[in-house]
């Protein structure tokens, strides 16, 4: 999971530790060259390529001399399907991250503070996330289906007569999002909760506060930045999600990344698709900036 980077204490450490051979520039570049090449040529440059195509009237392979235009952005901002799916994605992302936070925080708390083998239990919990995302989403499709296990249980319990529609709508997508991005929530929470000094909790209890008060007055404020980071990681992931929307959602629940996916899959207007990509990438960068800022805040605390 990408959460090694959540440990913000590592960045300054690298600067402190690596004072060493400062110069020897050429030699160092020889060492980092392959990785730098990949990151620049296949990550950085493609972003600029998408940026360029987003302001072209057509793809160069249709017309070798296309003109520059903002028409694609205007289209994205004026056609309801794009704007709506963007807003919808934001709504789903927020909903999913709140649900995920509420259900995962107690578990992270338990594992970080109470359990004997918290790290091991966490490892077992995260086994499903080592399998392909496509399998997990597919499994939810089976589980949530009208003849799936949830509907069966509800029916057996006598709560419903007809199957509840849990699939191809918002419910399905939220289920998918919350489940799929659990690691992004629980790993940072576990890390941040593990860092709360025990002495502070003991002090709080010695001063006569009960556990709820301690949680509210000590633990929650101390883990605020870490918690926010976890929420933002889930938001980031939801904005990039394609498969939950594709497999668990329906025609009325399109999410922005799956719109991009279908634009490029179906050979529709790639320039408009590029404009969409640029907008989504901008959103991701914004969220990432907040994430970095939160990381710094943790450091200064």
């Amino acid at each position: 999971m990408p959460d090694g980077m959540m440990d913000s204490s590592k960045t300054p450490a690298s600067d402190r530790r690596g004072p060493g051979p400062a110069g020897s520039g050429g030699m160092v570049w020889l060492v980092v060259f392959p990785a730098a090449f990949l990151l620049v040529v296949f990550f950085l440059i493609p972003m600029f390529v998408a940026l360029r195509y987003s302001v072209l009237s057509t793809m160069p392979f249709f017309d070798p001399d296309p003109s520059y235009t903002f028409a694609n952005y205007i289209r994205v901002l004026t056609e309801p399907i794009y704007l709506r799916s963007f807003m919808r994605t934001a709504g789903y992302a927020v909903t999913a991250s709140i649900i995920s936070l509420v259900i995962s925080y107690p578990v992270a708390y338990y594992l970080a503070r109470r359990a004997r083998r918290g790290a091991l239990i966490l490892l077992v919990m995260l086994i499903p996330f080592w399998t392909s995302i496509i399998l997990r989403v597919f499994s939810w499709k089976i589980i949530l289906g009208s003849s799936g296990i949830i509907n069966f249980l509800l029916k057996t319990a006598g709560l419903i007569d007809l199957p509840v529609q849990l699939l191809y709508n918002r419910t399905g997508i939220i289920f998918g999002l919350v489940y799929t991005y659990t690691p992004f929530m629980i790993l940072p929470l576990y890390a941040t909760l593990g860092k709360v000094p025990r002495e502070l909790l003991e002090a709080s209890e010695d001063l006569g506060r009960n556990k709820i008060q301690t949680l509210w007055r000590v633990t929650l404020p101390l883990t605020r930045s870490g918690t926010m980071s976890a929420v933002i990681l889930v938001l980031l992931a939801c904005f990039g999600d394609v498969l939950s929307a594709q497999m668990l959602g329906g025609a009325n629940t399109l999410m922005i990344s799956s719109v991009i996916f279908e634009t490029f899959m179906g050979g529709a207007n790639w320039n408009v698709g590029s404009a969409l990509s640029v907008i989504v990438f901008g959103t991701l960068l914004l969220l990432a900036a907040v994430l970095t800022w939160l990381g710094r805040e943790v450091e200064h605390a």
Partner: protein
Amino acid sequence: MPDAGKRVWRQTGWGRKIFGLYVAAYLGYLLLPLVILVLYAFNSSEYLIWPIKGFTLRWFAEAFSDSRLLKATGNSIFIGLVTTFFSTFFGMLLAYGLVRFRFRGKRLLETLNILAIITYGVVSAVSVLLWFHALGISGGIWPTIIGHTTFIMPFAVMVIRDRLLNFDMALEEAAMDLGANPLHTFRDVTLPLIMPALLAAALFCFTISFGEFLLAFFLIGNELTLPVYLYGLMRFTFTPAVNAAATMIISLPILAVIIVAIFFRREVRSLY
């Protein structure tokens, strides 16, 4: 962690029980999708309906006789292995450079490395597709390997960097003082010390590459990878052979997790 704060964490029976029960339920919720996939793989009915009926191995036979599935699996394993090799090797070099040296462009590389991880998604995938189009490169196994290596290597960097930050530099310095040149020092001192991190990173990279869908979908061209093939099956036809294939795929990472859990406890911790 266990007994140190007993005084503080002394529990009144019920609260603790309910808490424990909740965590158990949560664990069940996380594992449910895997259990369901496996159960249907052995289910004798051809419909994915609950409750399941009887036991059969028919779907495994069907999966094994699906030549496209086997081809896709072969491709995924090949792509996974090559990606793992390059990601771990280049990732190690970058991590070493970032931790041990100061140089121009270091900030940029660190930023790119992290950004590649946190913005990974459909946007990166289609951008690479556009770039390959512009270069006139059509899809295939090698373009997929390039895409995978670019976006999976940053994970390896994080794991290996953490290990490099946390071992005693004096060991390297001692070797240098005793007259070893940088290359020998790296080979004889640094490499053995970071070996567990390299292996953990490699396992990690293989698992990600093997299950990766988005980049592969856009870059694989007329070939198939396992996730891309399964995606097609799941959308259109719908037999439990998919579950049988899934079951085999699932067992792979579980095996990996067990290996990691046993041999690389420290590196696992560095991931959180």
